[in-house]
């Protein structure tokens, strides 16, 4: 039975180039996000340690000045 409207079916396995390109871009974007996330958390670890060191030093100074 022929498809209604005389439409031709697309051959299986052949995606339009635009759709493939879009999928590629999306995949690249996802990879970039993952990479950025890893770097952000690595950076956050460094900056958290810095903040903690500075806070501890400050508290120590406050205690010493209080004494």
């Amino acid at each position, binding site marked *: 039975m022929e498809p209604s409207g005389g439409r031709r079916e697309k051959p299986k396995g052949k995606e339009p180039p635009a759709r493939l390109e879009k999928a590629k871009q999306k995949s690249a*974007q996802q990879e*970039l*996000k993952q990479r*950025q*996330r*890893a*770097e*952000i*958390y*690595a*950076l*956050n670890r*460094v*900056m*958290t340690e*810095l*903040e903690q060191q*500075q*806070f501890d*030093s*400050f508290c120590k*100074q*406050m205690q010493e*000045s209080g004494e």
Partner: protein
Amino acid sequence: PFFVNRGGLPVDEPTWERMWRHVGRIHPEGERVARRIRGAADLPKIPIPSVPAFQPSTPIPERLEAVQRYIRELQYNHTGTQFFEIKKSRPLTGLMDLAKEMTKEALPIKCLEAVILGIYLTNNMTTLDRFPISFKTHFSGNYFRHIVLGVNFGGRYGALGISRREELMYKAPVFRTLSELIFDFEEAYRRCWHTLKKVKLGHCVSHDPHSVEQIEWKHSILDLDKLSREDFRKELERHARDMRLKIGKGTGPPSPTKDRKKDVSSPQRGQASPHRRNSRGDRRPSGEKKPADSKAMPDLNGYQIRV
């Protein structure tokens, strides 16, 4: 400086470079930090935390602990660049979309983002009231702002949030009055040498994630310089009463914020009101210097205890 990523995710190149430049300026090791991390092949894999899901029988206090654990797992954002842009005037539905994005992208967050996330993660807890609590404090010549999500369950008050300081975020819902909760925060501030100057209390937030209402961030504005201790407590309890009576939480179309300000629960509020609304003269960017009026603090290369 306070940088915000306004271009969504992934972070665009100018914002990304700005983040690293800022780090290079403030970290003692300067640009070595960036060189160690950028492009490194062996960075640890950080799993994306699972959004907490609960059995219907899970008690609310337990759920709140789980929500707080989730927020904590995202980590406080110390990078200097906020990754999610939050416009406080957005309708709730837009903010909830942003919260959903936060759970998908799973990046470090700061206090305002944690409040939005806290609302999102507790929307299905209809017996839990949520309301924003903003603090303005003074330390070593500068003013600092912080916000948490106040919660009220069964008449007991607590809070969800995130902060650099452990004592300025999660509070289990055990405080019998709103005053007790706020005084607890005040004491926590005092322990890190901050003086509480102002408290802004929002009204209860709708549980409807598709609501077009705006969050009311400052239903009550309490200036501690202008209030006696007792008046401060009374105003806090007045706000608590307003929330209990659910004043302003109607079922009709949302009213603009300005209109809501005129409608007060207590007729006494208009008389020599201890709080000011939207005082422009009082709005200062975080960290703006004022003439020092407190005793000298040890100067650790200008280190400021931020919260």
